């Protein structure tokens, strides 16, 4: 108790600094994957992608990031075990943040593929298991998180497969692809708007409006989401109208005009992707931060405590800074590499990944956005939509799991004892 009373202010500041550092890492590295598909398929320029990412990452974090934050804050570590010594939880979460942030930094300098989600989960499990006791880890919850890392790419792949098949059936494989693209693309746009609105209303608002007692039932939420989807759809139709088919497409590909329509759709799915990413991955930085702030404010480990929404705000800001200072470089690099993805294929992958991530955020599971997107791209590939996919990379993804978890854990343990030594 004395530690918290004595150093409370410093610890609080440290939590915010490390949280920002971690959020910066997420913005610098992870966002590039989420947005790279749109840049690669030429649907967006890098500048546009950055602007969209900034707005929608922030919105996703603020409006829908609450559930995952709660999981990271109190789902992985069993708070009851820590009740006697709240300062251990503070040290632990601080070191988890610092460890994950550091690991992200090292990995991006060396060029290893890592996942922000894996590193933070690994770090939290690491300090709790070694620094406190193995009983302190809620292993059941951890197992379900690990399982979701396998399930989510598969789910995204399946969804992407069927989305791309539907595009082939309704649009590409018809007498007049251009006319059909105009007809059917708005439905996909509706789906994007509906999906995001639904998750925001069902999961996000209770974190944002919890002080006001404002709430909607399921039916009201569905109606409002449908209206929002309709609005998105109308905007989309308006934008699609402005595209006139060119007589002779420069590329010599008859579908070039259709792809121009899909590029419009891809702007929408890019927004969805950024929103989804913000809703899930910002929690990696914010969750531990919120835990520290809670302990310091209440003076103990309370399982039932309100989480201030300004914490989500800090996470959102951190991501945006990361994007602005460093993320754009990464995005440029990745965007150049994935030109194989035309808008019609890219949108299917993005929509599927965004849907999966947003659903996972709703259930409070921290999943890896990048891996989900990889799964979605594989799904499009299985629908014979991508020229070549490098299956060897699946091995490197597996390796990134194997490497990141112990690395995050090891660093976290190191920092944990370091803090414990300093603050006693």
């Amino acid at each position, binding site marked *: 108790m004395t530690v918290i009373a004595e150093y409370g202010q410093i610890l609080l500041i440290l939590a915010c600094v490390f949280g920002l550092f971690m959020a910066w890492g997420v913005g610098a590295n992870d966002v590039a994957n989420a947005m*790279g598909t749109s840049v690669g398929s030429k649907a967006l320029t890098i500048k546009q992608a950055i602007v969209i990412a900034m707005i929608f990452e922030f919105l996703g974090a603020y409006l829908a990031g609450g559930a995952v934050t709660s999981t990271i804050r109190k789902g992985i570590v069993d708070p009851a075990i820590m009740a006697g010594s709240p300062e251990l939880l503070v040290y632990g979460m601080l070191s988890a943040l610092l460890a994950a942030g550091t690991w992200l930094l090292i990995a991006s300098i060396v060029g290893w593929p890592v996942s922000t989600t894996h590193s933070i989960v690994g770090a939290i499990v690491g300090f709790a298991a070694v620094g406190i006791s193995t009983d302190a880890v809620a292993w059941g919850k951890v197992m379900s998180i690990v399982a979701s890392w396998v399930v989510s790419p598969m789910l995204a792949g399946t969804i992407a497969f069927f989305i791309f098949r539907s595009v082939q059936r309704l649009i*590409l494989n018809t007498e007049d692809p251009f006319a059909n693209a105009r007809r059917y693309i708005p439905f996909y746009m509706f789906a994007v708007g509906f999906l995001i609105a639904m998750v925001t209303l069902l999961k996000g608002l209770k974190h944002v409006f919890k002080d006001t007692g404002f709430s909607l039932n399921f039916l009201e939420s569905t109606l409002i989401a449908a209206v929002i989807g309709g609005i998105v759809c109308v905007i989309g139709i308006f934008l699609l109208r402005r595209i006139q088919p060119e007589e002779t497409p420069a590329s010599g590909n008859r579908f070039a005009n259709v792809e121009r329509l899909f590029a419009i759709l891809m702007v929408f799915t890019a927004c969805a992707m950024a929103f989804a990413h913000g809703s899930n991955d910002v929690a990696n930085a914010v969750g531990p931060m919120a835990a520290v702030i809670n302990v310091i404010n209440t003076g103990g480990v309370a399982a039932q405590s309100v989480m201030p929404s300004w914490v989500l705000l800090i996470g959102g800001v951190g991501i945006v800074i990361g994007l602005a200072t460093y993320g754009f470089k990464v995005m440029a690099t990745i965007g150049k590499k994935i030109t194989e993805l035309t808008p019609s294929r890219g949108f299917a992958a993005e929509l599927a990944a965004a849907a999966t991530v947003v659903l996972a955020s709703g259930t409070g599971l921290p999943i890896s956005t990048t891996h989900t997107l990889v799964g979605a791209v594989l799904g499009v590939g299985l629908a014979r939509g991508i*020229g070549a996919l490098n*299956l060897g990379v699946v091995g490197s993804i597996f390796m990134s799991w194997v490497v990141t978890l112990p690395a995050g854990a090891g660093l976290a343990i190191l920092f944990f004892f370091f803090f414990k030594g300093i603050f006693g």
Partner: protein
Amino acid sequence: MAFSNPFSNMFGHSPIKPMQEHMTAVVEASGRLPGFFEAAIGGDWDTARQLQQEIAALETKADDMKKQLRLHLPKSLFLPVPRTDLLELLSTQDRIANKAQDITGIMLGRKMAIPASLKEPFQEFVMSAQKTAEQALAAINELDELLETGFSGREVSLVENMIEKLDDYERINDQQQVEIRSKLFELEAQLPPVDVMFLYQIIDWIGDLADRAQAVGSRLQLLLAR
């Protein structure tokens, strides 16, 4: 700063565009044949030599492309069509340019003169062989559209029709080959025997070139067969 992240590395080099570029180079090589024959028939061996060199250069270029493509198709690459079929198609394409180079090489080396009464049919025969090759190229140029539709449906039947047409062109070329042979047979007693031997060979080879163009179509058909 090295960024190798799993996501961007997932995308291999798509073989579709290089396949089309390779075929374009090949048909450009065989496209020099009619000009070469015109020069050879007119006895303008300087122009013929120059065209022969261009054909050889294009054949080399196609060979390099073929090598690059093979290197970029490792076994770990997940393709929308079977890798073996794609590589077979590539070899088949490549053989067209090789044949064009053989024909011009031997004609230039021997400075072969073509009998006056055979000049017209010969030129037609070469033209029709080239037409077959161009039709094969047109079919190969549909590969990117095929990828777009996932190698199924309407686009497939469109390509099937193109291959149908390709077969027709090859059949016409066969008929011309029969005719030109019988004409040569009538003349052969008046010509030096060795020259006649080689003339028959050239006729055979031009026929082969059309056959090889047709083979490209057949390979493409196998690629599309489900």
